[in-house]
């Protein structure tokens, strides 16, 4: 009896220690799975151009100005460049990202049901408010390929 109790306590302590070690040790770890993550840190820059309304604004852009704060998803040869992109935002925040494509297609953000057309060789900026949390697919509607995962944190 006593032996069993000792063993059980030892096992529980080990398991608990393991759990705690896991919890403590991994805090600094990044949440990325591979090297393909684009952290979408929307800087509060003076970008007043896009209206706050939840509509996708098509921009053919003859002279593309550098916008480092907007994450870009590149769709080429039927695939998202660098794999399915991870886009992270917080609930209530303005979601904004750009999709560049080498074919004509329509971009569909699941859940929020935002649609935006893109021309071959062009790009489009999609902007809307993150009204709810969860992880949502962004796909090229005609090709049916997922290009990004939109992660809305609570």
């Amino acid at each position: 009896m006593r032996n069993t109790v000792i063993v059980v306590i030892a096992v529980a302590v080990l398991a608990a220690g393991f759990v705690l070690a896991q919890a403590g040790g991994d805090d600094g770890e990044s949440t990325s799975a591979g090297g393909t993550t684009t952290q979408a840190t929307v800087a509060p820059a003076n970008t007043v151009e896009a209206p706050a309304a939840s509509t996708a604004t098509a921009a053919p852009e003859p002279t593309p100005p550098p916008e480092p704060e907007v994450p870009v998803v590149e769709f080429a040869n039927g695939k998202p460049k660098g794999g399915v992109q991870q886009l992270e935002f917080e609930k209530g925040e303005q979601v904004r990202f750009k999709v560049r494509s080498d074919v004509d297609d329509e971009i569909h953000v699941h859940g929020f049901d935002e649609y935006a057309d893109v021309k071959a060789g062009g790009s489009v900026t999609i902007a809307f408010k993150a009204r709810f949390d969860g992880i949502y697919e962004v796909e090229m509607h005609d090709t049916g390929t997922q290009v990004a995962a939109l992660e809305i944190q609570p």
Partner: protein
Amino acid sequence: MTRRTAGLTAALAVALTAAFPALASAHGFVGRQDLPIPRLLFVWAAFAVLVASFVGLAVLWPKPRLEEQAEGRRLLTVPRAAVPVAGAIGIALFVLVVYAGLAGTQTPTANLAPTAVYVLFWVGLAFVSLLFGDVFRAFNPWRATGRAVGWLGKRVAGGRLPAPLPYPARLGRWPAALGLLAFAWLELVHSNAEDPSTVAVAALLYAGAQLLGMSLYGVEAWSRNGDAFGVYYGLLGRIGVLDWRGRQLWARPVLSGTTGVAAVPGTVAVLVVLIGTTSFDGFSQGPTWNDLAPDLQGVLQDVGFGQQSALELAFTLGLLAVVGLVAGLYRLGARGMHSVDTRLATGELARRFAHSLLPIALAYVVAHYFSYLAVQGQAIGYLASDPLGEGSDLLGTANRTIDYGVVSANTIWYVQVGALVLGHVAGLVLAHDRALTLYENARDATRSQYWMLTVMVAFTCLGLWLLSAEAA
């Protein structure tokens, strides 16, 4: 010593089988996934299970409580006429879903069939069975058809129909286990799983197989053993308080119904398949699998498979591997229990403790699919008015949309963690209770018991590592 040790071993086996959920979960066809559970919440959940197992082992009842139950209380009796009505409703819904799948638009979210089968039937009925008992039995379209045919046969042929074959005891619930595995394969592996026509054809094939089984072995024997969904909802219906006995509705203490699960062959397989396939559904959304799958696909393509079949084969292998892992963990627990008293064979023990897996299977379903049901289940609002997706508005609800914000990430996390903790505790309680009735005061092999515990700890660590890696 022995009784407590036996209970302890059984409980640990259950706890460890349970320690393998991959919670970065969600589901294909809607394009929405749950956010992974935050690590802190996960740690608390693991702690709660550990503490609960301690309480269960040390303080919990020294005598079996759930096994020897009083009669229960009769609540009401349903009129005789309700039986064919329920059956007819079941058949009508089945026909509607198949018709919509074949004749309607082939856009998955605009057609009734995929949502009706994958969300309302597969997930929704699990919740219904928990709350209201095994109501599916009354509405089961295959069983209703079989009974109607039998009734007609008696009238027309005047009782000259041949008697059904005796159901082979060795077959047990194996056909149901295979049926559930096939359904999971369709849902999680098949590339066109969400196509309405695929869903409809699969439903027709399944119904055909059930009618064949019933005509061979009789309606009731087949429904109890061979019908995957009849068995699944029948098992889940035993967890809750409401208990249908024919047309009578009885009340019983929660969980007590599970002790009556007959230990026939294939019962463990049914539950292992349920837990394993749900785990794979979660696992296959995580980074580990998404790194692994393309490599596996590449290897299979090199061997000569096409791109799509290579991917399907890779997913099939993954699915079988996770089911096998869950089976192996449970077998290990049974093996440990066997070493306590070698007069009880491992296989026999595995069957006798199968019911303790039942709350865990339910917990997995709730944890993985609760948000799926809450969000995608709303689609029935517009689908009911426009089942074919062709612009009709039968009930005036065709313009309803899905509110994706109906459950917040926080709610989902607490439901998930709560379900897992409660499911595990329930499993521990059931295993403990069963062990108390099985083991006499035999001298047990304490050393093999220690060995068992060591293996189990190793598996817990592996399971926790997998979980935290998946949820990262």
